[in-house]
């Protein structure tokens, strides 16, 4: 049974915390979707690259007030 998409709030965290959080979530979630909040371009790029290495793709990126909401899907 698939669970609801989990939201990971990685705003304000320095490298490599956002990637670590996303990798942990990818390992533990049974959902096909993950939502990641970040507030720097470096974190956005790192999260997308790390997720891609695990077979997850970007479904959508929403930008608001210099922050990014990255919706990832398997």
């Amino acid at each position, binding site marked *: 049974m698939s669970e609801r998409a989990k939201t990971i*709030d*990685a*705003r*304000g*965290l*320095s*490298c*490599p*915390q956002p*990637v*670590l*959080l996303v*990798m942990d979530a990818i390992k533990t979630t049974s959902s096909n979707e993950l939502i990641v909040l970040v*507030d*720097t*371009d*470096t974190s956005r*790029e*790192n999260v997308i*690259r*790390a997720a891609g*290495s695990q077979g997850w793709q970007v479904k959508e990126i929403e930008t608001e007030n*210099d922050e990014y909401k990255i919706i990832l899907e398997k």
Partner: protein
Amino acid sequence: MKKLNNFLGSRSGIILVGSVIGILAPMLQKLGNPANMGVCVACFERDIAGSLGLHRAAVVQYMRPEIIGFVLGALIAALIFREFRPRAGSAPIVRFVLGAFAMIGALVFLGCPWRALLRLAGGDGNAIAGLIGLAFGIWIGTLFLKKGYNLGRAQKTYTSVGLILPLIMLGFLLLMLIFPQIPGQSKNGVLFYSVKGPGAMHAPLAISLGVGLLIGFLAQKSRFCTMGAIRDLILFRQGYLFSGVVALVVTAFVTNLILGQFNPGFVNQPVAHSMTLWNFAGMVLAGLAFALAGGCPGRQLFMAGEGDGDAAVFVLGMIVGAGFAHNFGLASSPKGIGPHGMAAVIIGLLVCLFIGFTMRKKA
């Protein structure tokens, strides 16, 4: 501009930045910078500490324009690409202490990770012990990261907070223009200048500043980080950043060969000592401190340029750490480690372990 943006954010971009550093550092040496140093972040911040009189080691005092350029180049890139994000408040005192001990460890080895790579590319075999130590220190850092170590969240803040370190660097540049070096004199106005030793060796100011601005601009956008390169290999088996490190070593090696600057060996290497254990241990301390702080010294300068006030505190910690290193006899010289270098490395490791074990609140 968008094409440049996309390119610098790719693997090709990180390889380009590693190559630019690998080519320009040996060329700066040809133009006057110390041998196998090129653009060593730790050494040059140490020279800045000396030029400000924070330590009085007469042979290492010069307001290095490369460092100023790194921060201002990163600021320019961040403004152009709309990545200037003022932020601060993630355990600043811890970042300051990590910066200070990172510098002390680097000065026991005699170089930052960039210089370790440049020393290797120049034929200095002692760099191998340093690089193994660096990787070992970063590996310890990854163990803490896996256990939930983090320094807590930074907050968005005022634009002026993000501009403070770039403005300090601009101030340093102005001081240098107001009080330029007078040949043969060890001081002009408030600034100290070495008349002999590594601090007296430098490329022309405009060239040094130009190279610094170029590297700062490119590296901000490509996220070049030598510590991150090793950390990501260990933690995620990800070689993205590491490709930049490889590019740096290969291009620096070829450039040294072309310029006749490749001198293989372990003894009588420029601004280096051959005490293998302490080359290793110094960089274990530096590597662990960089890993706990989230970036190598170059990366901290670039992040400070894009508005990260916590990275700026790390940079100031490094500059003050250089003051301690020379005032307390912690820094090495070509003769070997300083009288209190061993004690400093042990204390530094204990402090880093204390930070690593105690700051494990889950985000």
